[in-house]
């Protein structure tokens, strides 16, 4: 019935695998979606070869943003920072496996925005980071 809330989303929302924090960490960045108050912080550990070895997120928000964060972090473990920099909107949408309107899209992309702002070492998470290029 509710395709939009595939079980996987509610599952990752209710029982996230990557919720927590990493201390120490190599990269940490947080931001929020002022539209809905969704707030996310991402911590990463990167090894000498530039590979993401550990990842964690914390924050609060809707099922979409929280599940998106959990799925996204799951997907980047073992990837290089350069690969993370290449991630796009489409990658997140594939992970979620649902279609979203413009407002919910912002929720879905918030974790990626924050992740990319973190790995790029930017002071701000702007929409440019995740808009289709």
């Amino acid at each position, binding site marked *: 019935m509710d395709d939009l809330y595939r079980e996987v989303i509610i599952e990752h929302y209710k029982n996230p695998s990557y919720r927590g924090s990493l201390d120490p960490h190599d990269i940490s960045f947080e931001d929020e979606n002022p539209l809905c*108050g969704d*707030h996310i912080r991402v911590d990463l550990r990167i090894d000498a070869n530039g590979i993401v070895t550990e990842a964690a997120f914390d924050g609060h928000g809707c099922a979409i943003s929280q599940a998106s964060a959990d799925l996204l972090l799951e997907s980047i473990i073992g990837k290089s920072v350069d690969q993370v920099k290449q991630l796009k909107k489409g990658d997140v949408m594939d992970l979620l496996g649902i279609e979203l309107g413009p407002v919910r899209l912002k929720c879905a992309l918030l974790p990626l925005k924050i992740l990319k702002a973190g790995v790029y070492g930017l002071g701000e998470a702007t929409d440019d980071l995740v808009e289709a290029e």
Partner: protein
Amino acid sequence: MTFFNVEKIRKEFPILGQEVRSGVPLVYLDSTATAQKPAVVIDAMDNYYRTTNANIHRGVHYLAEKATSEYEAARLKIANFINANKPREIIYTRNTTESINLVAQSWGRSFLKQGDLIILTEMEHHSNLVPWHMLAQEKDLRLEFIPVTEDGELDQVVYDRLLDEGPKLVAFSHMSNVLGTINPAQEIVRKAKLAGAVTLIDGAQSVPHFDVSVKELGVDFLAFSAHKMVGPTGIGVLWGREELLNAMPPFLGGGDMIKKVLLRSFIPNELPYKFEAGTPAIAEAIGFGAAIDFLNSVGMDNIATHEHALVQSALIKLKTIPSLQVLGENAVNRGGVVSFTLAGIHPHDVAQILDQYGIAIRAGHHCAMPLHDKYGIPASSRASFYLYNTEAEVDHLVETLHKVTEMFA
């Protein structure tokens, strides 16, 4: 009191017959954001463009004269609707927001000075906050806020205390777009006047929903938007007392707002044109006039009564959902708005799942972040009712909310 038949009224609104998805009819519970439009309003604008369209005021040809007189006829209807003295006190703007900015920038910038106090409330929409933030920053003014009580009402004790500090302006919303609380506007204005303050009412949620008379309120400025009262987008109104409007400098400069222009100076026009620079929203004014006619034909008292019944029934039925918490549940005087939270479920998720069932509600901060901060929440879900909503829709809402809680259980 004319006879009120909601099924008959619904037929006047083309969009309400629609299915959101095949087999899923639209249940529109988002009129606080914007109202749907009856065919008579849509047709008035359609007809304007097909038969009358011309620029106004400066034209002597047939179309220009017809357009001008229809544009001005709408102004008169609006003046009568809010019981204003004169049509020239009706300034067409884009929306409530622009109306309030007009007061802040024209009246405020001219008549307020460093250290002056403005009283607002904690339940204001951003439209009645940010214009004052901007002005306060520019002129170094003081802003104080009437707190919202647990029951979702304005704290009159604190208000009385703030009045002792000699405010220059008291600006507040007639009805909260989040809590639904209808504030005791006449009383607030009366006290403000005694304290020597100018008063502004944000009528974005009151003028569409019940009878509002600027004479009875005794207020100085009233702002509202057509799109929330079955009229078109792109047009709103600032009503102001003639003496105040006359004393204010122009807001925007350009065509129509002038009497005379030289290379380096100009003389402003008379009211209301002084504040209407450039080609205005002509078709929209005419559509607004049609909306007023429509609301009058239904009767504002009928509308208020109908909404009151719906919201009272909704409040009772929502109690069947244990994890649901209504914001400002105990406000004594409330209009057709219910905002709520569901424990552990984000409002965006609530709204999106309801949408799957055809139910349109709002989720977010509803442009009232400080109020949500006060409740310690980033967002809420809001269902709102208007003249075309039904008891069956209330039931559908409540049933579906039960399903939502089950999904997340």
